[in-house]
């Protein structure tokens, strides 16, 4: 997998006055609204991921504007904001999934544990073993349940033999709270499970490679309330071991599962802070408007 040099070049690319949809109705420049460049009030515990001035372009169109954000380890950080504000785009920077989109170009710097992951020398394949991702729509592979979970360990050669692999699959399924439901049918296809089970299956698939970070892009938006509650419980348990970032459109969900919340609007990070603060007394007008349902 070769890397597009543009993706890792230092931010030599200033915003060249793109005429994008975002530009037209956003505040002219940063001067007016006092958008803080680095915001991490209430950040407890060590910082896992540090983003500095990250901008993303899709072709000529800029989708993300100089986002700087610290994400804590062993905690859940929620990204909220109206549709199209760049939450997924930012999330995909963290595991370099934007590399797979030909038109996408990322500038700025993101470090995980101090290591610059936008660096040319970083192999996105190895990075993605450290940063797992769960998508909006459950996407189990058309393979057996066992093979779905064994996928990562197999391609990364993480287990020495069959018993180790089986142990790891069992452990991951247990961790994802799915083991009891599927223990007796590991060989049946993963696509035959219910939506909620499928989503837990792909979470098991992600944690089977023992990542450090788990990114979740609206993991519950295709699920019913009961399945959602189970996933939320699961996220809460996983928090103790992983750094979790979750994108959600549900304020209630952000409030329930996250310790810190970041609010995005029109490609900018508007405000980030402890979840309680964001929901009870946001400092930004736009945040207040959004969480009270005045737009978005």
């Amino acid at each position: 997998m070769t890397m597009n040099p543009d993706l890792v070049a230092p931010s030599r690319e200033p915003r060249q006055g793109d005429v994008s949809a975002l530009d037209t109705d956003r505040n002219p420049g940063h001067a007016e609204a006092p958008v803080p460049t680095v915001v991490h009030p209430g950040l407890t515990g060590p910082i896992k991921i540090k983003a500095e001035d990250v901008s993303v372009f899709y072709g000529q169109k800029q989708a993300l504007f100089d986002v700087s954000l610290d994400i804590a380890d062993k905690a859940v950080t929620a990204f909220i904001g109206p549709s199209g504000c760049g939450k997924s785009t930012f999330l995909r920077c963290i595991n370099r999934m934007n590399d797979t989109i030909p038109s996408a170009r990322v500038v700025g710097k993101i470090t995980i544990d101090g290591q610059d992951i936008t660096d040319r020398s970083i192999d996105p394949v190895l990075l993605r073993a450290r940063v797992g991702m769960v998508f909006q729509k459950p996407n189990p592979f058309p393979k057996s349940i066992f093979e779905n979970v064994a996928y990562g360990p197999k391609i990364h050669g993480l287990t020495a033999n069959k018993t180790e692999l089986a142990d790891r699959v069992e452990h991951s399924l247990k961790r994802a709270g799915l083991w009891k439901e599927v223990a007796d049918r590991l060989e049946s296809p993963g696509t035959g499970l219910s939506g909620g089970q499928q989503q837990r299956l792909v979470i098991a698939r992600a944690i089977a490679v023992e990542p450090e970070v788990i990114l979740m892009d609206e993991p519950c938006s295709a699920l019913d309330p009961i399945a959602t509650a189970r996933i939320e419980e699961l996220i809460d348990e996983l928090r103790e071991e992983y750094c979790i970032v979750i994108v959600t459109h549900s304020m209630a969900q952000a409030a329930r599962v996250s310790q810190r919340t970041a609010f995005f609007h029109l490609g900018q990070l508007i405000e980030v802070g402890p979840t309680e603060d964001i929901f009870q007394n946001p400092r930004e007008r736009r945040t207040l408007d959004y969480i009270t349902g005045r737009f978005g």
Partner: protein
Amino acid sequence: MILLVLILLIGFSAAAYWAGRRLARRRAAGTRAHSSLGYHGAYVLLWAAIPALVVLILMAVFSTGIQYQLLLADAPEAIRALDPMRQGAFWYDVLTVADGGTPQQIWAGPQAELLQSEAQRAARIGGLMTLGGAVAAVLAGLIGLGLALRRVAPQFRARNRVEGWIAAFLFVCSAIAILTTLGIIASLLFESLRFFQSVSPLEFLFGTQWSPQIAIRADQVGQTGGFGAAPLFVGTFLIMMIAMLVAGPIGLFSAIYLSEYAGPRQRAIIKPVLEILAGVPTVVYGFFAALTVGPALRGFFNGVGAQLAGGPLDSLGQYLMLVQNQMALVAGGVMGIMLIPFVSSLSDDIINAVPQSLRDGSYAMGATKSETVKRVLLPAALPGIAGAFLLAVSRAIGETMIVTMAAGLAARMTLNPLDTVTTVTVQIVTLLTGDQEFNSPKTLAAFGLGLTLFIVTLGLNIIAQQIVQRYREQYD
């Protein structure tokens, strides 16, 4: 003549259209009509033109038959006395002369005179019938016109009527293809039945002696001894396998390249080129096989054989030295090349139908491109690809031109790709080209082969379509 009729018909239709329009406008004056004037015009046009057209078509179809019957009814005694074959030839020449042609046979004496007089009679009858037909067509058109004009009224639903006619016309067009296919099947079945009356189906399917050319005349020995088609099936199978060994992997891999690896620029070049390749006439591939690939491979094998001969592999060498231009390998290989674009474009569609979310899932797990292709995309696309391969197999079996030019005529039970073999399609061609008596088992055998081919390819197509269909539904 036909041109004149057509011009008249068009003029008549145009007149009917304008008449309908004008009448509709006059009658609708002041009120709001249900349909626009154009529809009234079109309605009148249809009613005027269709009856006239129907009469003309009936005339064209039946006039010769009626003319012939009338001629026969008053046939002179001298002709009735001739033997039936000769009578047929006579009447044929009568009609030819009546149309201004020269007779095919030499007629002498009273027959020659009769030929002239009968030809005049035929021309008279023909003229009368043409006149009658023309009058009938004009009458039919006028009656239709009159009826239609009477109905033109503001409240008349001309639009719905015209739309109905258009729907009916389009339906007939689509039905023609289906009906024709049914007709082909019926004729295949019918003629095959006649064939299987003289040769048993079991012998046909499993017999290993194929020598239909021997049984040319009824008095020859072994008349029905040569209709075991198994060698043809084996030859067809062999060439199909070789073709699929070439087209399957190459087509599939190029599809993978196109859908997963190629950037937009490469895609923009390669896809159209492949599509152009798919449009090259098979006869071009045929002479490429016969004139280029065949001699080249033969030279290669003969050369290798010459090296081996006399050594420890002497017998192999001797064999290779005798390899001919026409071998299964050449026909199959070139056919495989012909099928590459077919396999690749079908597989490309199928791989593209695998949802992006599966690719994302795999890449997000840290899989590389080739791992994603091998472990996720191909398993997911497998049923569809199998369907695509079956479609290609069915094309390989039915392909005619390449094998006719490059495979040979020797019916052999062999799976050796260096041997000359023959296929079902090649034999159909050889059985039916040239002057043929339509009733001999030799000619009818072609129908037996055709039916077998038809059943096999139809079956393959149905299975393949089902697989591909079900595969598509899976990801909708």
